[in-house]
């Protein structure tokens, strides 16, 4: 079924009787060419691109719960490609380009909204670093714009420029950055993959890998064995747990990152803004809620919830730059599990086990990467060669000393 405004009107006039399920609910087949573990954004995107771009239709996505129930449904919805390093920037720029055509590609309005993202500058050292980054972005074909405090004040008139402990000295903007309706990304990819013949199998938990003579033959699941030519893991938040079933240890620690939403408010923030002297970033959803977050709680956790010190730290940042927000109310807080890698950058690679592939370690940046991650993973699975923009996301980079460390924090995951 094709979605369109006309269709909405037709269905409305005929009592909405014609809408069909967005995806089927098939039982698992005995064997697939490719089994993707994880019905989150990355897994579903991988399935979509495998089917649509690489002609692979004998594909299943298996999900232990309901699709879109992991980090794709619990993030702060930001998209951007404002990276510094050559290992990252081309990849995220490809992602941003895919976002730009996503709705037409999927025939699903994920509300990709390029309302701009702005990182505030509070010191000369920070400005130097942001200029270097902005130049790297432009040299990689992305857009970047250095704004003066006056420029910023025009766009955010209620910003604290009169009494700030750390005065705002400008900002680095990426006008093509923005936000996307996160749940719709999972649903749009799922619907499209399903349309291309991919089986999306919910409530199917992987309990083990069947590995024979160093070759992965399929997965044991709560719904029985499913044979596979290739098994692709994309289970952000559960990477270490899943891969331990294949006796792998990963360069990953799982941490909790809290996020927050305010009550619905009439338009306040036109774009995404990031405080450079504290831990706070914020945007406003189309529904009117301020969606904001800050730093990791800082300790390993699979609890999907955090604690008060981080809540307070984030809100201190909020009222420091937007004193007006004191009277807005925080409605809901939640935590997601971040698979923090040892250099802050992800892994999209084969494992040492034939037929077993891995995609993970996205830290808190996985959402914006969803299209490119799906595309690059699909490329790797279909062609057995890394996509050029993801060529640096190798397992062996740590052993070889080829880290991609945007923040320069080294092998301590909670600092990335």
């Amino acid at each position, binding site marked *: 079924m094709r979605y369109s405004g006309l269709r909405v009107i037709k269905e*409305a*006039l005929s009592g909405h009787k014609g*809408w069909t*399920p967005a995806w089927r609910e098939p039982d698992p087949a005995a064997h697939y060419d490719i089994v993707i573990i994880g019905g989150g954004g990355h897994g579903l995107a991988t399935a979509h691109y495998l089917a649509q771009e690489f002609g692979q239709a004998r594909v299943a996505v298996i999900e232990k719960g309901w699709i879109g129930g992991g980090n794709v449904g619990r993030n702060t919805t930001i998209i951007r490609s404002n990276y510094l390093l050559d290992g990252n920037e081309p990849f995220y720029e490809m992602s941003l380009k895919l976002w730009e055509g996503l709705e037409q590609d999927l025939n699903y309005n994920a509300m990709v909204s390029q309302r701009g993202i702005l990182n505030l500058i509070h010191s000369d050292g920070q400005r130097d670093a942001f200029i270097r980054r902005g130049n790297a972005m432009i040299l990689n074909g992305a857009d970047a714009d250095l704004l003066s405090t006056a420029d910023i004040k025009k766009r955010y008139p209620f910003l604290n420029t009169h*009494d700030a402990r750390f005065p705002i000295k400008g900002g680095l903007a990426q006008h093509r950055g923005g936000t996307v309706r996160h749940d719709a990304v999972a649903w749009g990819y799922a619907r499209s993959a399903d349309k291309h013949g991919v089986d999306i199998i919910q409530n199917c938990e992987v309990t083990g890998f069947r590995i024979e003579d160093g070759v992965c033959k399929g997965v044991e699941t709560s719904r029985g064995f499913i044979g596979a030519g290739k098994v692709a893991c994309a289970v952000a938040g559960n990477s270490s747990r899943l891969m331990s079933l294949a006796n792998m240890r990963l360069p990953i620690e799982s941490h909790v990152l809290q996020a927050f939403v305010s009550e619905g*408010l009439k338009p306040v923030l036109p774009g995404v803004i990031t405080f450079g002297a*504290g831990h706070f970033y914020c945007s406003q959803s189309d529904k009117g809620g301020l969606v904001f977050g800050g730093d990791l709680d800082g300790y390993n956790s699979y609890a999907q919830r955090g604690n008060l010190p981080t809540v307070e730290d984030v809100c201190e940042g909020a009222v420091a730059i937007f004193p007006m927000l004191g009277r807005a109310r*925080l409605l809901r807080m939640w935590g997601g599990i971040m698979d923090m890698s040892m250099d802050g950058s992800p892994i999209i690679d084969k494992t040492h086990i034939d037929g077993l592939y891995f995609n993970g370690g996205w830290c808190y940046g996985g959402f914006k990467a969803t299209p490119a991650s799906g595309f690059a993973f699909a490329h790797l699975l279909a062609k057995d060669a890394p996509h050029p923009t993801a060529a640096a996301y190798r397992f062996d980079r740590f052993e070889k000393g080829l880290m991609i460390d945007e923040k320069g924090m080294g092998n301590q995951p909670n600092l990335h």
Partner: protein
Amino acid sequence: MTQKNRITGGQIDRNTTCKFTFDGRTYAGHAGDTLASALLANGVRLMGRSFKYHRPRGPMTAGSDEPNALVHLRSGARTEPNTRATTTELFDGLTATSQNRLGSLSFDLLAVNDRLSTFLTAGFYYKTFMWPAAFWEKVYEPIIRRAAGLGALSFEDDPDVYDKGFLHCDLLIIGAGPAGLMAALTAARSGAEVILADEDFRMGGRLNSETYAIDDAAGADWAAALVSELANMPNVRLLPRTTVIGAFDHGIYGALERVSDHVATPDAGKPRQILWRIYTQKTILAAGAIERPIAFNNNDRPGIMTASALRSYANRFGVAVGQRTAIFTNNDDGHRTAADLHAKGVKVIVIDPRADAPRARDYEVLAGAQVVDTMGRLGLTFAKVCLADGTERIIECGALGTSGGWNPNVHLTCHQRGRPSWNETLAAFVPDGLPAGMTVAGAAKGDMSTAGALAGGAQAAHSALDLKGRMLAMPKAEDAPVNITPFWYVEGASRAWVDQQNDVTVKDVKLSHQEGFRSVEHLKRYTTLGMGTDQGKTANIGGLAIMAELAGKTIPEVGTTMFRPPYTPVAIGAFGGRHRGQDFHPKRLTPSHKWAEEQGAVFVEVGNWMRAQWFPREGETTWRESVDREVLATRNSVGVCDVTTLGKADVQGADAAAFLNLIYCNGFAKLPVGKARYGLMLREDGIAMDDGTAARMAHDHFVVTTTTANALSVYRHMEFVRQCLVPDLDVQLISTTESWAQYAVAGPNARRVLEKIVDQDISNAAFPFMACANITVCGGLRARLFRISFSGELAFEIAVPTAYGDALIRRIMAAGAEFDITPYGTEALGVMRIEKGHATGNELNGTTTAANLGMGRMVSDKKDSIGSVLSRREGLNRADDLRAVGVKPVDPTQPVPAGAHLMISDGPVNAAHDQGYVTSACYSPNLGHHIALAFLKNGDDRIGETMRLVSPLTDVDVQVEICSAHFIDPKGERLRA
């Protein structure tokens, strides 16, 4: 201005009249009213508009679960959007206005959405607005955004103050209804430290809204007496107007006390609210239960509310919402509302879908009947009822109470991911999987009778505190069983609201099911059910039940709802506390701060430190003039700079040298006493972590410095190595950053200045370059002197105990007057270090190796040191690795800005041809042109090469020459002078 719906009774203070305005009209109410009860007393039912369809709405509840009656409270900078009229305590002078409307509240132009509702079903926006692609941001989204949202912020700074506080207790009791009060009394009499918190301004919970007696007193009076007894006990802290918002790890609860929200403006010195962190051993959740509505067509008109809300308005606030009132209930509790209202003189009729509904003597009960529709544009006028025999009857009513049963208020039991379980008898979820230390009592646990709540509360306190004595005697109270037949929505209803705030109807739930969004998480996300400011407190279970029925599953099979903190929305300002404006972070002031202020210094934030950036003199109009002067004066005569902010640590013990050998990549074992040495620290991954100096004051005593930025993290790292890696080395560490005031005195006349202050011989022979010593100054004050130089000049760093820092800077300035000693700030410091080619944070950016910095040979392979093994990985030792170089413009008038990238002179400009980047740049007044430090691929072999330096971001594209990073005195003659 008549309170035409005011009836007798209630716990309002009729002697105190409060005037207030709503949408510009003035009304009167009484102390003890809420804004909602006062408006209802005045006959005002219409208080807001719904989120999507802009349907007219009035209060649906009398509490914090309210979805509809949201207003802008107060005005100007104190405007609070989305404030529930049902919990807003009335005060004299209160002003409120309605929100989320275009036009007036009674004539909202956006109500057109309601007419278009057939097109605006759940998730319609995912299916359209895709063409043309560019129209989403430009056309559709702005329209949607303006229509969406609820209230509006003021766009002015919040003028109020918020405090944070910490409380400790043995037992925290959440909710002061019958269960909470009995728990409190039991605990208090045992001598335990008790905190009793309730969100309401009047403790007592449902007892305030009910008519039945406890022992021989009215429930509300019994509660009031008990509250006053508790208030007089020293081990009890009562926190009314305090919402416990979240259950966090290890018995830590967040609570918000609304200190001043019930007065027009906070009294002088009082905060608006306090965010408490309560540390408790045990917790009893006695948060009661929430009545849920029934869905039928047009069940959202002003005047339609939960039956218990009608009871609260009548019994507690003395308000009859309608003189004719209908009750639609599937359980016996709804009949109690009818009886109470009838007793107050309200004309009542009961509609109960149960064929065996209890009968009443004094009013009509329509058993086996259902409300199928309602009428009334801005407020309820008629209800249409389908009788047991299938015929319809129109009933005139100004109020309609619905009761679909009660949901135990399990919210806080879910905060640590406990999942409530389904109880068939109650047809409701009850707590399961509690946070450690929490027990639940009363209606929150599913004990719905008053007697059950009283006994449950006492029992909970008894076991939580492990009390040995006898239980308190229980007062007499009603003990009616729960009698309910689940009934969620009227068959055939479609425009029947499940979530009133977000306009989610039965039809939307059906569509969600039809399109495959069938799990609770999908249902919520697709329809927005439960996503409003009330977080679905009255809506979630109904939506879940309808989905269960459609899917042919039980309710628990569809899922449970997951509640997350906060229990009710909390002002962001309360979490922010006083950390805003200048108080966002603490300010660390250097020992010379006061003196520098006197000199008119310009300060800059360096982490939490405030450092003098430059010292402008009269006549200087740009910062560059001041900085150039400070640099030249230092290089030509002498300058002084406060360098206290550098991290300092004392390392002592017989194994101190061995310890330093481990943490620095270069060697320290052979450093003689009386000498300092530059040290480079690597992280274990082989990347440079920090640099500084280590000075050997004695065989077993080193003084180590770090960069300002890394003072904390380096010290932490040193302690890690000491405690975790070499626990038995004889070495002790202490951070001395704040113990010593330290000044750099630099320039050819530096020694002459210090000779006037230092008591010992500091001639070049006695105190050569890199010497260090414990000395005295000014005739006996203990001090430390280091002959180290960041500027490249003949320089000393002199340290005295911090308390003497201010005196020392004044003494140095006096001693240097004859040499025109010049104080310099961080800018001049930066210029001189770039001229000298010294690295700082811009170069040690967490990705650079010792080799990148040109110090590869310092990494000793003769000893173990942190980072040495991994620094040898191939990826960190490639032939074309970055090397630190100097950069100067070919045309000396051109800048060479930091952040610009280096390209081959005649090659393409793009990432694939990127050769490196400038890390630090400045104008060198000594050289008369800009200079910079850069990292350049294979830089050592490219000295003299002409390259192109580009910064497309800032429109820079200049030809530059690669040179040595040591622009000034490359042989180091000055610093040895």
